[in-house]
């Protein structure tokens, strides 16, 4: 037990003394996950809206595919992205491998099904009186769509928070696409995995505490958003 306790004490020292290696991993994590959440929302919200709002042939099989992708393992995403981004792959010339944008691409693929599925659910669950109300107030089709999207804004933000929670805690994509390069692509999760393997519990615990704090903040945001959306 002693080494865990001393690790915890050292972790607080690292955090309060502003250990550059620790904060480099935090910075990389926040940067990559923020990029990927923005991309997931930008791509996933309109797709989810169409899937939840429009009635078209094939909508149900698409929903099944999206729901299945929710369980996509991060290492599989990492593997696929690696195959595409490596020098021999079709995207090799873009030089995305072992970069933060490359990690963000993989994490976007991870977050996308979450955003699409939750947005589609949110739009499907919009009050059935909304459309009729907007039409009787004189809304044109584009005004109908924009207002419906705005009415679902809390649920959309909830989708973003859920995607962020999943992305920030993943390790497979960051490890395979980022390569865990110190000062460059090392994230909180890859650093924890590596430091624990080396027996360096202090830095692992310090990063773990930050990760838990991030998860707590995301959960608090989600609770607040759930209350606002009336769920």
């Amino acid at each position, binding site marked *: 037990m002693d080494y865990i306790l001393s690790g915890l004490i050292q972790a607080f020292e690292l955090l309060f003394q502003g250990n550059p290696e620790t904060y480099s991993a935090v910075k990389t994590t926040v940067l990559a996950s923020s990029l990927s959440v923005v991309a997931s929302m930008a791509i996933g919200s309109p797709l989810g809206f169409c899937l939840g709002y429009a009635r078209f042939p094939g909508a149900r099989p698409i929903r099944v595919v999206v729901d299945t992708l929710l369980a996509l393992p991060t290492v599989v995403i990492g593997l696929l992205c690696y195959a595409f981004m490596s020098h021999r792959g079709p995207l090799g010339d873009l030089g995305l491998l072992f970069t933060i944008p490359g990690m963000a691409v993989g994490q976007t693929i991870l977050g996308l099904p979450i955003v699409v599925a939750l947005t589609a659910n949110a739009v499907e669950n919009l*009050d059935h*009186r*909304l459309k*009729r*109300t907007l*039409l*009787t*107030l*004189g*809304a*044109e089709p584009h*005004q109908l769509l924009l*207002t419906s999207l705005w*009415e679902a*804004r*809390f649920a959309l933000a909830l989708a973003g928070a859920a995607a962020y929670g999943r992305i920030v805690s993943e390790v497979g994509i960051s490890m395979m696409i980022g390569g865990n390069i110190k000062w460059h692509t090392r994230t909180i999760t890859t650093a924890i995995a590596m430091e624990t393997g080396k027996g360096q519990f202090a830095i692992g615990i310090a990063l773990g505490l930050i990760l838990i704090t991030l998860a707590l903040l995301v959960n608090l945001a989600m609770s607040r958003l759930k209350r606002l959306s*009336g769920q």
Partner: protein
Amino acid sequence: MNERLYHLENLTQVYGDRTVLDVDRLDIEIQTITGLIGPNGSGKSTLMRILAFLETPATGRVAFQGQPFSKVPLDLRRQVTMLSQEPYLLKRSVQANVSYGLKLRGISDTVHPVNRALLKVGLDPARFSHRSWRELSGGEAQRVALAARLVLKPKVLLLDEPTASVDRESSELIRHAALDARNRWGTTLIIISHQLTWLRQIADRILSMDYGRLTQVD
């Protein structure tokens, strides 16, 4: 003779294999108040939705201001607005709810019209305009929804059981607001209500609907 606003002929509406509306002929003249009574499921609300351009009839002819149903342009359709029994308020403030229709029409200066509309339905703008939708009682929400229609100064106001879930005071306010709309802007009103006494106080004529068919009430 008054100008004819709506003209319906041989109108039917069908849901599945059930005919819910079967109207041989109905004319609604401008600036009149028509009351509609009848049991639940008799087709009143279906008729209202057709008059509000929310539903397309299965067969028959509907004309609004002389224009066939399918060719009524947006600016004419925007002269018609409807308040349902359980109105939906947007997840915004009272001010934003009441001004929504004006903004759709490109009107940006909405504060004074919204305040006037709130006063018409008996809500003090100073107390209510910044309240959130979730801070309103059922009766207040109903009045805010009515204000959101009145602010548009509509040519046609369709009210589907506007007094069903409000107290007597709100019911009187709604009656006054409806009459005021007719007197000020020449609004034509069609009102569904189960309260025949209330309806008699406001309507020029009352029609009864049963099994989708209309008859005049004496």
